[in-house]
């Protein structure tokens, strides 16, 4: 019973982490904002989750410098495309 009342007022961790993800791309409603803030005040795990989720977001955005070594020969690709274009004109 206590848990039910708590979740009604301050959200469950499941719901709180959902709102944390929602917040990255959508605006939260006023109620959602308050609920999430209250939840985080009491829940260290979700506060930690939010911080780490933010780090992962940044990480995915920055995840490009790894790939340069795997690039194909762009000269060859150019030739291939030029040939295809020639064909397309015929």
């Amino acid at each position, binding site marked *: 019973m206590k848990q039910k009342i708590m979740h009604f007022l301050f959200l469950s961790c499941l719901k709180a982490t959902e709102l944390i993800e929602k917040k990255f791309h959508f605006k939260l409603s006023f109620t959602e904002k308050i609920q999430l803030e209250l939840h985080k005040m009491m829940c260290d795990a979700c506060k*930690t989750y939010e911080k780490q989720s933010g780090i992962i977001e*940044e990480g995915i955005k920055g995840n490009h410098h790894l790939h340069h070594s795997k690039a194909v020969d762009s000269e060859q690709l150019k030739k291939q495309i030029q040939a295809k274009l020639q064909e397309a004109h015929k």
Partner: protein
Amino acid sequence: MSKNQENLSDWVDQFTAELYSWTFHKVSNAELAADLVQDTFLAAVEKLDSFKGDSSPKTWLFSILNHKIIDHYRKKVNQPVNLKNDSFSNFFDTGGDWQENRKPNHWDEADEKQLIDDDEFQQVLEKCMEALPEKWSACVKLKYLTEKNGDDICQELDITPSNFWQIVHRAKLQLRDCIEKNWYNI
């Protein structure tokens, strides 16, 4: 050859490398990236007459390319995923509280910026992304494809906003857990 067609041939020489590296970053697959760039130029031939030069050729080609990439992801997102109903129950108990052994631990993030720039951390992240169901990783990646907000992405993908952030929510829970296990060995 018309003037426009000559232009297009020049553009292949000028922009192929750049278009390719952008695409490769987005799809992480060399063969697929090459195909998408090639398709872009083939589509450009068809549309050449409608190119009025209002934007630079480069911008024009990138906009065709981005549509191709989004199409690729849209197909993936629309593939049904074997969504285990209990995928949340790995992380939360029936009341919605964290499972004791899945609670986020503190990471020793002395410097977040440093962490994000760390090649090894990026490799762990990459590996963990690959471990996700394709549909989930497609949603996560697509967020960074364009600088669009959530509503626009949902429109592109033809899914509802709540569907979108629920997929991202599941993906993120898995990702975070995977990184914690593989990077911090907690």
